């Protein structure tokens, strides 16, 4: 098993509390960072090559260096803990088991950015984790890691946890900012970007939980050392939430660059497909990324084994590749219906669309209804093309990436599994899933 930097000591006693965390090397990085200059911390993160763990994979150091610094205007750091992507559950796990690593990472990052107020925007459904964080923050205040004059350095920081109301769209950074300000969580039109005008029109950086937590090992081991882990531009470790038809579902921390085959079949990680079945398809990075058939996931178009890294997974573009995304690794065995799975994803995007711009508002609902027609056995061949046409009219035409995220799964499912859609059309009524029918119509089976 490769190196673990974030979840290595979860089995230690009391790691969720401040004394337990400190006993295992906690808040050492903070003391080290506060002795450095803010620019040095930023340059360490730049050297580490850390990329955003929330899905887009944007270099974190670069994001921090973009923040506008007009004199007299406060700057803010916001932690995006609105993890709601189907298939992704790593941030929740980390916050629940080791809240102090996030808090420590946030203090270091706020110090690097020069923010005196920071927020953790947590999803409404994660009430349990919300209370854990509140308690941990109180502990940090009592120990002098938060508040006025942290560790006698003269740096002040207030950290607040803000609870959202449970909307996927508030995980988009500008939607999150609107929601944090107390408004309806509609994403803003960019430009201006949050780095220029974010929370209350002040420069803001929004980072994922795992990104901010990763700052702690970076400071501990220096950026250069961190950059040695991983492969190419994908440096460091990444939390992967593995789910679906595998023997050992759960959250795994991998060094980026582990071969997909090893991750899927080795006993250290997923442990192979459940019940000795064959692999059919994998959604490699949360529901928003393109679905890939098993053979295309294990081998790149060039015939090389595919690795768990940002570059390798996206090799072959959208036609033959996928994305690492937020690390929600959903595995489907040979018995799974891709059409039904797609209906479920599309239903999610229909439900979560904010309704601001028309292609996403109307298109997601339309796609869901057409997919429902497939499952109901009334679809025609023309519906496959119609579905393709609708997704192409949503992709890239919306304000925020939710429209893209809704269209990519549809596009990739049709691209790779068209025969399965045709099967639903030909076999019609025989393919109808009675359980599904009962569920969507709120009926009880007789």
């Amino acid at each position: 098993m490769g190196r673990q930097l974030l979840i290595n000591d979860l089995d230690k006693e009391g790691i969720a509390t401040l004394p337990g965390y400190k006993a295992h090397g906690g808040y050492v990085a903070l003391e080290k960072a506060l002795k450095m200059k803010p620019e040095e911390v930023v340059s360490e993160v730049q050297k580490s090559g850390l990329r955003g763990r929330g899905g887009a994979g944007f270099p974190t150091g670069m994001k921090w260096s973009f923040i506008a610094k007009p004199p007299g205007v406060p700057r803010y750091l916001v932690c995006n803990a609105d993890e709601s992507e189907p298939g992704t559950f790593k941030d929740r796990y980390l916050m629940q088991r080791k809240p102090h690593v996030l808090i420590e990472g946030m203090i270091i990052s706020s110090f690097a950015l020069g923010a005196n107020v920071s927020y953790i925007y947590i999803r409404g459904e994660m009430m349990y984790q919300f209370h854990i964080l509140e308690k941990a923050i109180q502990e940090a205040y009592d120990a002098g890691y938060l508040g006025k004059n942290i560790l006698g350095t003269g740096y002040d920081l207030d950290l607040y946890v803000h609870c959202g109301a449970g909307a996927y769209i508030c995980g988009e950074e500008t939607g999150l900012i609107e929601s944090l300000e107390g408004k309806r969580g509609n994403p803003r039109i960019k430009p201006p970007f949050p780095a220029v005008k974010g929370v209350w029109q002040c420069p803001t950086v929004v980072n994922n939980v795992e990104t901010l937590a990763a700052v702690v090992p970076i400071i501990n081991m220096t950026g250069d050392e961190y950059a040695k882990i991983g492969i190419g531009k994908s440096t460091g470790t990444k939390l992967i939430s593995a789910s679906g038809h595998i023997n050992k579902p759960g959250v795994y921390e991998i060094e980026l660059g582990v071969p997909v085959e090893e991750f899927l079949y080795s006993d250290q990680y997923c442990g192979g497909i459940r019940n000795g079945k064959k692999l059919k398809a994998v959604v490699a990075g949360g529901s928003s990324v393109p679905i890939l058939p098993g053979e295309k996931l294990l081998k790149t178009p060039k015939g090389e084994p595919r690795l768990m890294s940002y570059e390798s997974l996206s090799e072959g573009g959208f036609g033959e590749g996928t994305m690492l995304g937020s690390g929600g690794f959903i595995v489907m065995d040979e018995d799974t219906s891709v059409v039904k799975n797609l209906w479920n994803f599309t239903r999610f995007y229909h439900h979560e669309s904010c309704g601001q711009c028309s292609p996403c508002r109307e298109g997601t609902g339309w796609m869901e209804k057409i997919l429902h027609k497939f499952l109901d056995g009334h679809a025609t061949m023309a519906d496959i093309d119609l579905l393709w046409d609708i997704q192409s009219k949503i992709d890239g035409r919306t304000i925020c990436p939710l429209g893209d995220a809704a269209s990519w799964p549809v596009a990739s499912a049709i691209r790779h599994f068209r025969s399965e859609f045709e099967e639903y059309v030909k076999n019609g009524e025989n393919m109808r899933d009675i359980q599904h029918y009962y569920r969507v119509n709120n009926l009880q089976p007789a």
Partner: protein
Amino acid sequence: MPKVTIDGISIEVPEGTSILNAARMIGGEIVPPAMCYYTKLETSGGYCRTCMVKVVKGSEKDPRPMPKLVASCRQPVMDGMEVQNITSPEVVEARAGVVEFLLMNHPLDCPICDQAGECNLQDLGYEHGKDGTRYEFQRREFEKKDIGDKIQLHMTRCILCYRCVKVADQLCPSRVHGVMNRGDVSEISTYIEKAIDNEMSGNMIDVCPVGALTDKTFRFKSRVWFTKPVEAHRNCTKCSGNVRLWFKGEDVLRVTGRKDQWGEVKEFICNECRYDKKNVSDWVIEQPTHVDRHSVISQNHYENLKQMKLDTQRLKAKLPEKKTNGNTK
């Protein structure tokens, strides 16, 4: 001043101008349609996606094209920017797609809608849409609601352009009017069904691009193309008092703000002028309103009427005697 080229036509515009406004300065066919953008309302625009254009050259400094189509109403121009609107098949196709999305859940009850004839969505559908729809499912429906005693909200027709929300935010002091729910069931509503009680609230009717917000003092009185618009003014303490009166015969059927060639109100008017002053004696009449010949309202006017008579005569002459008997007396 930055110089921008739209569909091969160059123009120099002030710093910070949006692509849409630059196109409007050029005028003509190349102006992208806009359903949600409103010059007088801050932060409006960007929602409907009908004004999308393709930027093939970002600027003189950074000549890379923009990867996606951009909403021209919110994208400021850069020096040396090159934009394609009607010359790009991708834009035309995307716009047709947006029109389809907008009409998908629209009831198409134009025959009984007060907005018909001056509806932006009708124009958009004719100019940029395709015939027919591929949508075969039930359209969404809402109950009709009253917002105050003078405005009726017919949410089923709404395309969620957010213009009325911006009016309520920016012209009215307290914020009671907004959007509820999300996705394709989101609806315009007021806070706990509260009536909007404000001097300027009537402007919501003017900014609504479809028939979702209608003037209850005018509902079902007449089709708009049977009324004649004239410009008029009065001394009003609350607003500028510059309005447009819509006559049928000698009666003033409704009062609205004056709209410019892009269908945007020039000056917002107060509710007293709009609802309570419906006598000719209240107003000083200036001149008949110039009506654009393409507008449906022009059907009730000069040349087109003559042309229609000529057409009918020609048609009569062509048709066999028997068939015309029943139709034309």
